[in-house]
């Protein structure tokens, strides 16, 4: 009978080795690894031959030699034309990070304002926000950078006829001549005061949370913290005898003197990067707020919360959960897009290291590799941090 032909439970069915899915996947993966290894090996081999032919010594020895070119922007690090290529790298990285951090700061503010404005009951306001978003995100960023740099900033008056912005300084084709803070003796204490104030705010925040859990009473953490963070350094400022002074630029015959010069490349990049990214952030904020269920608002009202409290205690915390992950990727996009600085010769990592330094040394593999890995590291570290943050703050479900 047919029953006797059926394989019994403990006997393995006879399958050809090639039909065994496990064996097949092993073979396939082995083939893939071999193929990749061959590809990488042949690339390295070709590169070695080509470099030898071009007479370029490979290796990272060039990093310690003097660069021989100057840079027009380095807010924190020391740099002269006799600095090494390694210093060029650090200055480039510094300029990229400065650009990214300031860009993110403004993009967040503008983005949140536009995102909330988009949801406003006010027709004019929401239409303005709508068209802002649509226009900004549908025009290439590089074009926007050029518009600000060559279209707007390059047509400003020459330094003789600078535009006087009052307390902000002077604006002309050479950039913004802004007031500069000069930190004198004892200003370090103010910095410490600021750090202490931040630390104390965190402690108060923890204590307030515990107290609310225990008694239900709320403590105005925000206002206390703000008072501490602003108040303590100001208190120290007066105690230490006003160590910080401001140097205002003055208009001279040959243009503004003194103060701090912000180069036009930087202004153009900040404007373009923050306005462009803000359009994307606005959409994220809008989607985040819309994602909070209408019932949440109604429930808050039913509990007797006022509209302001509802927004602050109920809607925003829940919306943030939706907003944060895409917001992070926008921050990363901004950091990566800051590499477009190379188009208008702002000395960021791509421009000075992957551009000028590469042309000077010809070490294409090392320099491009270092540049790409740096951006990759920034991306990975940020997304790891955000994944951790996200996991900590996500809804705990059953």
């Amino acid at each position, binding site marked *: 009978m047919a029953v006797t032909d059926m394989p019994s439970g403990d006997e393995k069915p006879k399958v*050809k080795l*090639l*039909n065994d899915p496990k064996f097949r*996947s092993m073979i*396939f*993966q082995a083939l*893939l*690894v071999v193929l*990749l290894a061959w590809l990488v090996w*042949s*690339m390295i081999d*070709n*590169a070695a*031959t*080509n*470099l030898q*032919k071009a007479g370029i010594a490979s290796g990272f020895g060039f990093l310690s030699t003097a660069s021989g070119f100057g840079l027009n922007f380095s807010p924190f690090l020391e740099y002269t034309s006799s600095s090494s290529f390694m210093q060029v790298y650090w200055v480039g990285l510094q300029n990229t990070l400065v650009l990214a951090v300031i860009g993110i700061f403004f993009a967040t503010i503008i983005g949140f304002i536009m995102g909330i404005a988009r949801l*406003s*009951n*006010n*027709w*004019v*306001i929401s239409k*303005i926000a709508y068209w802002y978003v*649509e*226009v900004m*995100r*549908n*025009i*290439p*960023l*590089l*074009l*926007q950078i*050029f*518009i600000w740099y*060559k*279209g*707007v900033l*390059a*047509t400003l008056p020459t330094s003789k006829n600078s535009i006087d912005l009052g307390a902000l300084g002077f604006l002309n084709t050479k950039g913004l001549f802004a007031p500069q803070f000069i930190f004198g003796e004892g200003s370090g204490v103010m910095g410490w005061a600021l750090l202490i104030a931040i630390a104390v705010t965190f402690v108060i925040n923890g204590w307030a949370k515990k107290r609310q859990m225990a008694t239900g009473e709320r403590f105005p953490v925000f206002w206390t913290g703000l008072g501490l963070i602003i108040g303590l350094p100001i208190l120290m400022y007066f105690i230490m005898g006003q160590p910080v002074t401001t140097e205002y630029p003055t208009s001279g015959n040959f243009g503004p003197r003194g103060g701090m010069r912000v180069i036009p490349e930087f202004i153009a990049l900040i404007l373009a990067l923050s306005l462009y990214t803000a359009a994307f952030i606005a959409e994220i904020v809008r989607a985040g707020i819309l994602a909070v269920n209408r019932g949440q608002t109604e429930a808050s009202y039913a509990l007797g919360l006022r509209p302001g409290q509802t927004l602050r205690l109920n809607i925003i915390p829940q919306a943030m959960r939706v907003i944060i992950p895409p917001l992070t990727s926008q921050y990363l996009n901004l950091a*990566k*897009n800051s*590499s*477009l600085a*190379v*188009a208008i010769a702002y000395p960021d990592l*791509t421009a000075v290291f*992957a551009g000028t330094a*590469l042309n000077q040394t010809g070490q*294409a*593999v090392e320099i*491009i590799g270092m*540049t*790409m890995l740096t*951006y*990759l590291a920034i*991306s*990975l570290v940020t997304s790891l941090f955000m994944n951790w943050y996200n996991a900590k703050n996500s809804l705990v479900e059953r």
Partner: protein
Amino acid sequence: MSNTKNSISFVRAEMVPEMAPPINESGVLGWMRKNLFSSIPNTILTLLALYILYLIIPGMIQWVLTDAVWSGESRLACATIAQGGELPNDWKAACWPYVGAYLKLFIYGRYPDAELWRVNMVLIMFFVGLVPLLMPNVGFKRENLVFMLVIFPIASFVLLSGGNLDLNGFLLPDAIMGPSEFKFWVDFLILSLIICGVVWAYMNATDTDPKQAVTITAITMAVLAVILFVMSVDFGLEPVETDRWGGFVMTLVIAVTGIVAALPLGILLALGRRSDMPAVSLFSVIFIEFWRGVPLITVLFMSSVMLPLFLPDGVTFDKLLRALIGVALFSSAYMAEVVRGGMQAIPKGQYEGAMAVGLNYWQSMRMIILPQALKIVIPGIVNTFIGLFKDTTLVSIIGLLDFLGIINLSHSDSTWATPVQAMTSYVFCAFIFFLFCFGMSRYSIYMEDRLNTSHR
């Protein structure tokens, strides 16, 4: 009790005619009350916004339309008195005759005048093929797709570059046969036979009927041969080197090639990332995360500076092709994530159902999972394309003369050099990009709505 009839005599026998709604609740006035002046803060905001609009809008209209110069032969038409022209010294507005004079260059780049009909043919084919593809109600989607993904790229390649690809052998050593076009076909035939043989041997070894698989392989190789033949045959077209390509056409070429190359690569990477095989999924994850983690401009630098180093001696790519490779690899990583999103949205039951009816991995992907997943992610694909379309402007940094590159180049021409020149050309460029990108994003929203309703 008997007078009940009288007590309800106040009930009306006929309806009261409807009254018009209160004047300040309906119509323009009501709408304004509700949407503009509902409260004091709202009124203040409205007035503030109107004031800002008053500051911006008239100035913009003056700049673009009323104050702008519309005709002229050279920079003198757009120059102020101080600059040697006739316009008042505080004049600042668009100089449109400059855009008019450069329009051909902006669209076609430096493509030879006598051959422009070829570019126009490509553009017409592109739009004729694309429009019905985008309209969900038009039939023949499969034929249309074949046209857009196979026939159109080959035809555009032949038309734009002139075809007549130089084919040399690649398999047999030179000692047996000197490099020639004939040798290429001999080599190709040998390669096809080897591949068919391997497929036949594999099918035999796994107890499957080899007939079908071998036929499919043979047909694929034959199609490939036809494609190569069409690309290599001499149609008598003047060859046009890629350094003469440029303008908006180059922007389109890069964007479309990028997306067409990225789609299959992206699908493979998405499948790889969701694969059970650790080596495959690890490779896919590293590949995807690497390209997503670096800025496109460094990728372009890499492909223009580093790629030539990695190639064996004697093999050279031209500048455009190198940029295209960079763009395709870069966007394939983004495409992979879009496709993966679609595949994750497919319920597990679909995978199990496919297995239950006895489909193998590739069959179930091809016939069950991917058709559904790709349909869901059409908006995502369009959005990736918008991003890619905007990012093509970056190739101007590595010296290709795309739309933005050629605009920047035109600024060095002294015939039209005025302070307003840069802004005029950028506004024109921004307007074109806005039209295309805004149109595409509208389309993606439309598709999203459509797909949404069909699933409910």
